[in-house]
């Protein structure tokens, strides 16, 4: 009987831990879409998790490619996961040329979202980094502005 109680106690103790280990990124995506504001339509999300950058090495980056269309307005939003070490920012590139970034490293100013009024249809590259190459997790959301 003692063994039975012990096993049941262990089971009840460990099962919530297993459940807590599951990511809650979907909730984060929903809240980030909500934070993108009214008159936007969600298109895509990117779940970003990066380690701290190693000394004398380039900061880790999450890269994604996305077709953006002429005559469309896009909003790129970023949201940090609770407990994330770093602050997430997004940079948009067109064929290697930086178009826009939500973080200005010179002034230290960071925006939670940036708007892009697209006039050239093509494949763009989106980079997600954490400021200062910190470890962190978060989501990037791309919406269409109606």
């Amino acid at each position, binding site marked *: 009987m003692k063994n039975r109680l012990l096993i049941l106690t262990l089971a009840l103790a460990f099962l919530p831990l297993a459940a807590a280990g599951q990511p809650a990124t979907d909730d984060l995506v929903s809240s980030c879409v909500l934070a993108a504001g009214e008159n936007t339509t969600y*298109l895509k999300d990117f779940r970003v998790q990066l380690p701290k950058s190693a000394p004398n090495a380039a900061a880790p980056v999450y890269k994604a490619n996305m077709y953006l269309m002429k005559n469309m307005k896009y909003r790129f939003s970023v949201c940090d996961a609770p407990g994330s070490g770093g602050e997430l920012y997004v940079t948009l590139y067109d064929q290697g040329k930086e178009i826009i970034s939500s973080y200005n490293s010179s002034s230290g100013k960071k925006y939670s979202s940036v708007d892009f009024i697209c*006039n050239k249809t093509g494949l763009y590259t989106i980079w997600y980094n954490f400021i200062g190459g910190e470890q962190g997790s978060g989501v990037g959301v791309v919406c269409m502005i109606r």
Partner: protein
Amino acid sequence: MTGTITKIAAVILLLSFCSCRNSNVRQGRPAFPVADSVPAGEAEKLSEEAVADIVQNIASPVEIASILQSMQVPFSAGYLAPTQGADRLTTNFQKAMMLGIYGADLGYLNIYGKTGNSVDVLSVIKRLADGLRVGQYFDFETIKRLSVSKSNLDSLLFLSVNSYNQIDRYLRDNDRGSISALMITGVWIEGQYLATQVALNFNDEILRDRIGEQKIILGDLLMLLRPYRGSSEEYGALYGMMEQISAKYSEVKVSYRLGEPETKEEDGRLVVVQHEESIVEMTDTQLAEIAGLSKEVRNKLISGN
């Protein structure tokens, strides 16, 4: 006593398994074998980076519909794919293709707020997603409730598009890229059908540009399908049809005018206006031919022949 302990241990093992499986689903890793993945030896393997380069948002189920709505083009149920024959779809090829086609139709219905009409489409999507073992990513009950109540269009749009994104992510993460490619192609062909059919009746420069610009995207879509074209007769036929559409675009010209982006701050938000521009040159004849072939291919795909 030993028997009781064994039973309890078995229950714990079972619960642990369920927990891990759920965790895998949320993280996009399969806990079951997949019969429809194309073995590496049968497909010309694209590098993961190359595939990632081309698959993100090749076709969105809502962008074309959004343009049509901004043009004040009236909604027409006549553009929707019929849902009656969906029960007869047997192969994963057909299910994945139609999942994409109905996804674009759902986007069209939702953007126009015709949510009461979308229950049939939703039911078919749910069946197809279940058939492909990705139904867990389609929150049918919530989407249906929002559709029927017409209470929150933004939430409905988010949940619908997010379900498709999750299905696509899961398929790609789990070596079922061939199924993902079909779903993406389905979304693309239905969007193309919708855009071209409307363009034949409404002369709108933005819509014409959008159709012409598909020349760029179509090249990447073909690259996405290419590794699987030899995997089955159906896949080979699809690839051939997409090549035919691509050939119709050969004389469409897309050029670029250079310009520097302009950055400004509006209401505390950073805004960039791009001044580099893509310019499409497409004649009425080219448009008519592209529209005709796109319709033919789309109708062939929805008829399952």
